[in-house]
């Protein structure tokens, strides 16, 4: 259950950036996963150099945000007026290019990124129930970032512009919202969120080429469930997906092993668990075709 929340919050960080970019700029950015990968690699590098986990994460987040803004400024800006197919093709090409560049710079072996010394042990959260301190930290960080994002979107002028842009772009532009710098900034924020996710998932998973693609699909599922352009939707969707996925993987094989051999059960279990997510998506879309919290009405 906690694992699901932890995974869900990390998914939320990814999906929040994606949903804002998609909802406000009307831009499908497949290279979002690559920013996540860059964030993880930068974290591993900076942690290696500085020796301090938190400093490394901070540097990596800033670095990734800069890279994201640079990408927006140089390449993606040309794509806003194009149709979705060109955007998908161009950003898919970006994925391949970034993967190769990362392979050239860091090599094809996965990098090692360890949780900071003080958090690598367990914590007793309930009597007799230990839980990884680092995963708890992830939950905390995820919650803090989610709160910050809500405040930013709901209580600031920039947030107002964002919401205006998400619900009706032309009108917002006509009302004098500085759309170009806003988009660059937004892209930077999205990249920074990716970097946070990459930095905290890196020690749990592995920092390797292609780590972005597998999680990108889940992020898309999240924003479709949540409603495109809605941060609240992204949060709810991410938690739903995280919990369903983890619970499914943990308990389906157990249930199945009651009726089938362990090999069959462990084959079927994860497969069924991943179907479960898409099933969830299908059900949500059936009742709410715009997602749970549609940004546009």
């Amino acid at each position: 259950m906690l694992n699901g929340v932890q995974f869900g919050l990390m998914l939320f960080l990814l999906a929040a950036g994606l949903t804002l970019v998609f909802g406000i700029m009307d831009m499908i950015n497949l290279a979002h996963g690559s920013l996540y990968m860059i964030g993880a690699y930068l974290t591993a590098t900076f942690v290696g150099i500085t020796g301090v986990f938190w400093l490394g994460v901070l540097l990596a987040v800033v670095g990734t945000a800069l890279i994201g803004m640079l990408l927006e400024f140089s390449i993606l800006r040309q794509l806003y007026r194009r149709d979705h197919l060109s955007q998908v093709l161009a950003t898919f090409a970006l994925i391949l290019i970034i993967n190769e560049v990362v392979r050239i710079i860091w090599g094809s072996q996965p990098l090692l990124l360890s949780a900071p010394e003080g958090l690598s042990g367990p914590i007793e959260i309930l009597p007799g129930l230990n839980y990884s301190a680092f995963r708890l930290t992830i939950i905390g960080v995820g919650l803090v970032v989610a709160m910050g994002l809500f405040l930013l979107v709901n209580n600031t002028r920039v947030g107002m512009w964002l919401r205006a842009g998400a619900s009706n772009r032309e009108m917002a532009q006509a009302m004098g919202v500085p759309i170009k710098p806003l988009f660059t900034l937004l892209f930077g924020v999205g990249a920074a969120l990716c970097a946070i996710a990459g930095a905290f998932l890196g020690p749990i998973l592995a920092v390797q080429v292609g780590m972005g693609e597998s999680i990108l699909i889940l992020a898309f599922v999240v924003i479709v469930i949540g409603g495109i352009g809605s941060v609240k939707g992204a949060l709810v969707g991410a938690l739903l997906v995280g919990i369903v996925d983890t619970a499914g993987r943990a308990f389906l094989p157990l249930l199945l092993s009651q009726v089938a051999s362990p090999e069959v059960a462990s084959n079927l279990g994860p497969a069924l668990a991943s179907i479960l997510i898409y099933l969830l998506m299908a059900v949500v879309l059936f009742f709410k075709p715009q997602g749970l919290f549609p940004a546009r009405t």
Partner: protein
Amino acid sequence: MKRILWLMVLLGLAGFSLSLAQPRTVKIGFVSTLSGGGAALGIDARDGFNLAVRLLNNQLGGLPVEVIVADDQQNPDVARQAVDRMLKRERVDFMTGIIFSNILLAVGDAIFEEKIHYISLNAGPSEYAGERCNPYFFNVAWQNDNLHEAMGQYVNTRRFENVFILAPNYPAGRDALTGFKRFYKGKIAAEVYNRLNQLDFSAEIAQIRAAKPKAVYTFQPGAMGVNFIKQYAEAGLLREIPLFLPGFSADADVIRAVGRPMVGIYNSSHWALELNNPVNQRFVEEFRKAYNRTPTLYASQGYDAALMLDAAIRAVGGDVSRKDDLRKAFLAGFNSTRGPLKFNPNGYPIQNYYLRQVVQAPNGEIINRLAGNIFSNHSDAYVSQCKLK
């Protein structure tokens, strides 16, 4: 007329240079996993192999050698293309290198059909040990079940009841748990298979917590082992439920990545750093000098594969077309990092299996120490089903 004369001169020169041709070079096709989560294994095996070739003055059995390396990316399709290239275009004389059993099973038949000897330095699937054994297949390391059999035997003698066993769902993972169960006679709390190359084990760790076993045995090669042990320790289970591992999940590569939590863990191996024979001492010393790291069992297997080829090519006087004699030479064995090594008719070795424990050396280095002998002159369980002689 002049032109024809020139042509004749050229032809003459060509003929001359042919007659002066070098002794034939022997070509080795080395297909291995050099990228992705299993890369550490392939890289260590390759470095071990190259080290041996270099120490033999770039010769095997007295012939100059060319090693052609390709990365299979742990992907059967990529491996098939690489092997195809080795067989058809490079026309190699021997093949070796593959780490993962599912990769080997995807390309094995293509190699055997070309009557090319494949010297496996790692993957030892049960499929090639029994009825489907092949005269062109040898494994210098072990049969997949072996290290797990040793650990099953050890856990059995320690009288642990109710053991939770976990392995990735691929041929070597299934062999692993079969091997463990062959010698462990107690109750199995649960037998679980995870996905190959899975990195987040939170679901499996939740299952372990729920099953409340007395001990956990898991086989996770490469990055999977690193992640599993880290997460098992982070969840606080390492202190509650002892973890037993095969040598694959507890060698220098994993220790480097996981660090302190590894100290105290028992694991099984056919090789150890401090095995007391001149071949091994030279290997460990030269490996550390050349690559500035502690060798793993994979590195020793790569090194041994080169020594095995060296001995056999020498035995046939450098004529690598004498396939039957080569086979006899391979079966006769050679002097390995584990001492003199002999083979069964199915191509798998007969050897000792040891117990090792991860300890912190006085200089602070975390390292594997020999802690005892589990099996002596042990063969695999399938050899009786093999019809080869």
